[in-house]
């Protein structure tokens, strides 16, 4: 009995403490879009102390699902919404908002890059993922088995990468050795190995994780540089999107407008992506 009284007292106390005018916006989805949105959220809260923005990871698939089942206001996605996903949620009218541009870059361990494998054609990459090339030797690299790192099927980075490389966004990758999730996890696995190939958002490249250039069918070699992403010559690019159910209203509208503003677009650039203004 005492416990029940105590419980109700605590609930009352708990509700009394909460400020009813505080607005909470929940966001979840792609780990590629995550850095932009969580930095933007931190900035936005400074100007709007009565708004709380809760940001969660999980991948593009999670973002679409949770907006679809109307559990969150804003989803983060780094790929297009599939027709299956639209069919799954007939009560939701997905509306996307482009907030920036990014490239998906084939990456290799620094040991491979330093040994001279700095560019590959899309066909070569596809062969690696199909399991038809399994040793770096075949690509003029060291005599080492290729550690092919794939991503979970609903991840945005994978959809974009597979669409361009294999021609189908949900293509199977029989050559894959590991299947990982977030950009962070993929980056870690590439660094820990000395013979890995993977796919990463441009913003995750560093001295241990080298983005390789792509040899186009006409022989031109295109580096994954910001310039090439801006002018559209790098072949695997995508829009970073926010998705809402219908037109966003209230706090969600204001927050999206903030990301689209000059200040918000600066955050996009600082995080290593390309602003939509450019």
């Amino acid at each position, binding site marked *: 009995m005492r416990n029940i009284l105590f419980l109700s007292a605590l609930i009352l106390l708990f509700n009394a403490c909460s400020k009813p005018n505080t607005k909470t916006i929940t966001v979840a989805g792609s780990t590629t879009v995550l850095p932009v949105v969580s930095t933007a959220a931190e900035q936005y809260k400074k100007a709007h102390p009565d708004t709380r923005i809760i940001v969660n990871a999980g991948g593009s698939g999670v973002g679409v699902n949770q907006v679809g089942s109307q559990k969150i206001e804003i989803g983060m996605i780094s790929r297009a919404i599939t027709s299956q996903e639209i069919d799954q949620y007939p009560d939701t009218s997905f509306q996307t908002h482009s907030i920036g541009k990014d490239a998906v870059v084939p990456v290799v361990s620094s040991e491979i890059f330093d040994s001279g494998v700095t560019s590959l054609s899309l066909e070569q990459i596809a062969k690696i993922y199909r399991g038809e090339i399994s040793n770096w030797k075949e690509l003029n690299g060291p005599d080492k088995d290729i550690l092919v790192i794939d991503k*979970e099927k609903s991840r945005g980075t994978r959809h974009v990468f597979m669409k361009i490389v294999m021609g189908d966004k949900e293509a199977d990758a029989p050559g894959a050795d*590991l299947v990982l999730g977030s950009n962070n996890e993929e980056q870690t696995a590439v660094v820990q190995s000395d013979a890995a190939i993977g796919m990463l958002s441009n913003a995750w490249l560093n001295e241990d994780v080298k983005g390789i250039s792509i040899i186009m069918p006409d022989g031109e070699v295109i580096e994954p540089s910001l310039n090439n992403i801006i002018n559209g010559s790098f072949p695997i690019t995508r829009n970073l999107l926010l998705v809402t159910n219908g037109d966003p209203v209230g706090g969600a509208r204001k927050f999206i407008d903030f990301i689209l503003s000059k200040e918000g677009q600066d955050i996009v650039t600082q995080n290593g992506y390309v602003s939509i203004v450019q």
Partner: protein
Amino acid sequence: MLVSYNKIGKGYIMLSTYISMLIALLIFIVLFINSFDAISQVGLKLFTLEWNPSKNEYGILSMLYGTLSVTVIALTIAIPLGIGTAIFTSEILPSAYRIYVKSIIELLAGIPSIIYGLIGIAFFSTWIASFFELASGRTILTAGILLSIMILPTIVTLSDDAINNVPKKYREAAKGLGLYPFEVIKNTVLPIAKKDITGAILLALGRALGETMAVMLLIGSIDKIPTPFYNVLSPGQTITSKLGREIGESAFGSLHFSALNTMGFVLMLLVIILTLITQLYLRKSNRLYE
């Protein structure tokens, strides 16, 4: 007044009983209902190799294999190590120290599995990779070794209890026959403690089957059976790691969700049956082991 307190009291007791029992049944029913779509629509094709939600292929064999192989590795390492250690703590260690050593082991059993995962990623996977000269240390073996460490405390403490519960007079009698300590333990102590040690192993098995976080971070998460199948230095996938990685991105109500659910349901049944066998038939004590 007294009578009404009596009634309220009984009401509270009955209510909490009904709620608790309802919850236990609810978990079972909810998982069963959500598995139904996959069982009826995918049917026996669940027992195939291909898992590809976009093509409506839901074969769970790779996951079953992964769960099985990781568990076998974990038990192969943990059983001899654990029983050996238990023989040490119960037969060799002076009994004054036994309570302290046991307490420490029991505390270690409480280390959260996500911390094992972190240690696995930071140390074990790199060690395995360099020791076997592999491209990646995320393998079935790595997950199995880590799992063996996680279940070791369970086996040690319970086997220690089992051995220690064997009455002294049996040992005295055996020693009186001029047997060596090894023969005393092998011929007299272990046969008597056998039932309880089996219980310890079954409980550890249950824990290994259901372990998620550490395995999910370390196994490489690829839905494949390695070639050849005993090559445990390849990555794989267990039921739990599959659930941990995919359930969030499958839409509730879809066939994909239902197929994942079915795997979870199968795993749950397996572990519950193991637990019930151990608790209800092998051990008569009421202590709960985790």
